[in-house]
């Protein structure tokens, strides 16, 4: 209790520009997953809003990683002092509902303008934000995976440096040309790298979507891990190493992936758009960014965090929180945020601003993620999300490391997930 008060005081100092006699006080938790600049930007934007809106005081609390933020919000809520607003992974929506902590934004969208605003986001982002006909999350720091390729390596392999693989088959074909060996037969450069440590399901969902599978239903209580299309996608992933030998065998570390790309260990990599700024700054060669290759269709998951509105807020607080979220998702604010972090601006309107147009003209790869959105689907999300995705991750790891066949692994995962999810049907 004392600490909370102390923190409130500290925050009050930080926002000295805010009006002294604030009518509505809001607490707002946010995580940062891409380094320090993001936190500064959120704080700046919040301060700007507070300065422009008399009678509202917002305390923006940097809560650490996504894990920390959801933990902190859960603990605070259980202790009866939930924040009014928090940015949390969009996939945690069902967990938050299960804990009975959040309320829909629809209740506060009273005017026509508000309702139009609720409908102004890219549909791919809203898939993870709505259930049972209600909108519980407003997209904020959202991303999607893309393919990065090393143009110099392509040239050296006799490939057109401007043409990335557009299909699964092309990725294998090009990968074979791009995989280089030394005299002893040891690989010095791999064709492609799809990291599989930590949360392999996310990039793998690119493959399942491209193969026409949807992993979970919109109610978050059914999964289709053993769908033949999912099995086929996993076979493809496993075969990249086993059959075609264009990707390193075993689990591939997510964190070391950009470095492996810079070091020329791999000619192509799949990773988040959140890496764009990093790659631009550190790649010692010319590189390109493309949509993930297609099989039956184009496809990719979305990722990242949404705004959630917490129960326990008074009516005034909820209204003020709603207004703040609406403001921060406005075109200029959103453009500023996107440019600072590399997250994908979640509304088409943002991309129409002069700021964004100028930015995209200067650095066209940022458009790839936006253009991919029309093919994108919801990130895997269910009730008891951490547990269910963990089951899926374990199955993927078992298949990748060759302990089980894709089919065995996924059948088992399906059975385990069903056992957990049947309570929610």
């Amino acid at each position: 209790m004392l600490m909370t008060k102390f923190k409130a005081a500290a925050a009050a100092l930080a926002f000295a520009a805010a009006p002294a006699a604030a009518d509505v006080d809001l607490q707002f938790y946010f995580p940062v997953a891409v380094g320090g600049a993001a936190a500064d930007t959120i704080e700046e934007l919040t301060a700007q809003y507070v300065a422009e809106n008399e009678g509202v005081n917002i305390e923006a609390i940097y809560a650490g990683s996504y894990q920390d933020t959801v933990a902190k919000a859960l603990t605070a809520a259980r202790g009866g002092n939930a924040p009014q607003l928090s940015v949390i992974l969009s996939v945690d929506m069902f967990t938050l509902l299960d804990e009975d902590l959040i309320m829909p934004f629809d209740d506060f969208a009273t005017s026509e303008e508000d309702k139009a605003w609720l409908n102004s986001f890219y549909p791919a982002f809203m898939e993870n934000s709505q259930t049972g006909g209600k909108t519980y999350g407003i997209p904020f720091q959202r991303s999607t995976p893309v393919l990065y390729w090393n143009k110099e390596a392509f040239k050296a392999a006799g490939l057109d440096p401007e043409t990335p693989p557009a299909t699964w088959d092309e990725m294998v074909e090009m990968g074979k040309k791009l995989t280089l060996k030394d005299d002893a037969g040891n690989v010095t450069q791999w064709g492609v790298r799809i990291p599989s440590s930590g949360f392999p399901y996310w990039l793998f969902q690119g493959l399942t979507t491209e193969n026409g599978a949807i992993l979970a239903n919109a109610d978050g209580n059914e999964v289709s891990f053993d769908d033949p299309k999912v099995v086929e996608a996993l076979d493809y992933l496993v075969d990249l190493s086993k059959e075609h030998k264009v990707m390193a065998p075993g689990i591939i570390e997510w964190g070391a992936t950009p470095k492996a790309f810079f070091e020329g260990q791999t000619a192509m990599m799949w990773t988040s758009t959140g890496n764009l700024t990093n790659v631009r700054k550190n790649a010692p060669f010319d590189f390109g960014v493309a949509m993930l290759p297609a099989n039956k269709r184009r496809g990719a998951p979305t990722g990242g965090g949404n705004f959630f509105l917490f129960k326990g807020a008074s009516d005034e607080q909820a209204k003020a929180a709603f207004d703040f979220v609406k403001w921060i998702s406005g075109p200029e604010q959103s453009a500023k945020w996107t440019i600072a972090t590399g997250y994908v601006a979640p509304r088409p309107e943002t991309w129409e601003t002069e700021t964004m147009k100028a930015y995209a003209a200067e650095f066209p790869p940022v458009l790839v993620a936006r253009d991919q959105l029309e093919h994108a689907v919801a990130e895997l999300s269910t009730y008891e999300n951490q547990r269910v995705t963990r089951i899926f991750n374990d199955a993927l790891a078992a298949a990748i490391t060759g302990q089980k066949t894709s089919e065995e692994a996924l059948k088992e995962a399906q059975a385990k997930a069903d056992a957990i999810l049947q309570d929610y049907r």
Partner: protein
Amino acid sequence: MLRTRGWIHAWLLLLPGFVFLIAFTHLPALTTLWSSFFTTPRGRRPAKWAGLENYDTLIGDPIFWKVLWNNAIYAAGTIPLSIIIALVMALWVNRQLAGRGFVRMAYFTPTVLPMIAVANIWMFFYTPGFGLIDQIGGALGFGQTNILGSANSALFGVMVVTIWKEAGFFMIFYLAALQTIPTSLIEAARVEGAGGWTIFRRITLPLLMPTTLFVSINAVVNSFRMVDHIFILTGGGPDNASSLLLFYIYEVAFRFWDTAYAATLTVVLLVFLMILAIGQFFLFDRKVHYR
């Protein structure tokens, strides 16, 4: 009268320490058992009596058996090796040696650096392709390795880091013990014609017995407790191949928010430690007596 005053003094002296000991060790150990008989409370459903349901789940949980087995391997691999290496280090640093200061400093470093930070460094060593091990291996003509990314070597990779960390720490205890062994004893043995190996086996090793016991208790506890590096190195993967009991407890409790099942897992851990405790106390009684 005087005697009871002495009693009261003693109890008062013990009171503050025991408040904390009981509040954060003994009581939670008991409430863990209690919690394991209930379901996990969720927002919409409060906790209710579950009887042995959690234990049923436990027996049917393949991950539990896997992490238990992993933990056994982890203990069997790290405990003896780190103790032997620590002893060898101490023996080396205790003798005349060119550059002894540097060597001792090198052995000390693991004690000072946080596990969470060195795990990042070890991750670089293990990284396939451009990591240190592969760079050295590559220069010698070996192919790429993927120690942390293969199911049969990930645990091994984690164990190496543990041994590195522990041996340096245990060495300090051995070094202190070695320096208390009277040199006259060794001189005398030498005069009688005993060789280096005989002296070590007949004099040094027996005199180090109390230290070995102390260190081995520490090593046993650590084999259940040291999981920090797993967070960075493997996250318990691939497919739980490098997960340990405490790491699994953490995941169940603080990622899945299933505190009741986490309590059940903790009960198993406590039972193991109790068995070890009883065993150790017997050993203590036999070999070392505290006046």
